[in-house]
């Protein structure tokens, strides 16, 4: 092989490998993703068993993942139908939550920043939210004020929702039945 083509080959390999790394650290949070409806969780990212992709992604972003003994994060970037969450639409999150001492639901923009609004409302905690009589939650994400549990989305084209369950008794009960499913995320109306 001639030196020129060898140099070209090496440069192409470096570019390809670095592109793959960039994609991995910006898109992924580890390889142990578990899915439940619209939600994705990475239970091992907050343990010493975190895989190299999770470690690389957190080192780059500067995030400290929640320790698994502390809590567990679930992210939703799409609704149950698979459509990306659009902050200009009315989105509803409805359903029962797994047993946990505390949970929080937070809306963020695409880059994970909180969305500024006059009410200074960025999410709900399990103490703030108004439950339905059957114990389910019903949260409305919308750019315009809604009755009930309203989270402003500021009309962002893309939003993501974080559900964090704290002190959830995952370790003790394997399958406690239907109450362990996560709420559904539905896009209702788009302008």
């Amino acid at each position, binding site marked *: 092989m001639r030196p020129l083509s060898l140099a070209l080959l090496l440069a192409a390999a470096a570019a390809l*490998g670095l592109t793959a*790394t960039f994609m991995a650290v910006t898109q992924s949070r580890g390889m142990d993703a578990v899915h439940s409806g619209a939600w994705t969780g990475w239970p*091992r990212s907050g343990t010493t068993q975190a895989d190299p992709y999770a470690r690389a992604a957190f*080192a780059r972003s*500067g995030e*400290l993942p929640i*320790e*698994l003994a*502390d809590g567990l994060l679930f992210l939703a970037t799409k609704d149950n139908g698979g459509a990306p969450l659009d902050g200009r639409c009315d989105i509803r999150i409805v359903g029962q939550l797994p047993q946990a001492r505390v949970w929080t639901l937070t809306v963020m923009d695409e880059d994970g920043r909180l969305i500024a609004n006059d009410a200074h409302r960025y999410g709900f905690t399990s103490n703030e939210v108004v439950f339905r009589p059957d114990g389910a939650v019903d949260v409305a994400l919308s750019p315009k004020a809604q009755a009930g549990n309203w989270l402003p989305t500021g009309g962002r084209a893309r939003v993501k929702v974080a559900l964090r369950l704290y002190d959830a008794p995952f370790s003790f009960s394997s399958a406690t039945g239907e109450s362990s499913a996560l709420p559904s995320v539905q896009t209702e109306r788009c302008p």
Partner: protein
Amino acid sequence: MSVLDFLSPVRRGRLLPRTARPQPLRRLRRAWDRLKAALPRQVLLPAAILVVLAGIVHLVTILAMPILAQNTAFHRLSQLAPANQMTLLPDATPADMTLPMTDPAFVTAVCLYDLRARPLRLRVPASEDYTSVSFYTARGVAFYALNDQAAGRVIELDLLSPAQRAALPEDEEITAADRLVVESPSERGIALIRAYARYPDLRPQIRRQLEAANCAPSN
């Protein structure tokens, strides 16, 4: 399928349920055979070398990222928190978050520890609500956490490096005393203290309570 079905094997330290692996492999193999038939050797060999080299570059950069990254949580916190001292972080706002993906419902304090000289003693009076302490190595790997329900009204523990832990006499009074000993896999790292504020107007009160928390080198 529910979330818990997935989580129970993780907690017991086993692997997650295996997904169907052979399927994509077989497909890859078939694609490879087709490629070999379609392309001459002069193209195929450099292409194979390219893929292998790119794979090596990818794996090396992924593995090196935690060591080389300049914007890790430890770097960010070092800007505003001195070592072995409790520092309350500013509240997360849309304009500014000290660490990305911080839960805005929590009041957060950090203690960047350095165990090279001495072990660290940490004392956190729990607020009325959920309070937790989690530990991370300087490279951001979480290795231990406990909350107020597991620890009682005051979370009190000693953080030791592996060498300091090994030097600790087995049957010392320390183990008998009501103090928790935690071993840190690294000499430097982050203790993250988080206290839950169930309503935003409770934040000032919880901040004041968290001010009573402290961490300092012990004896």
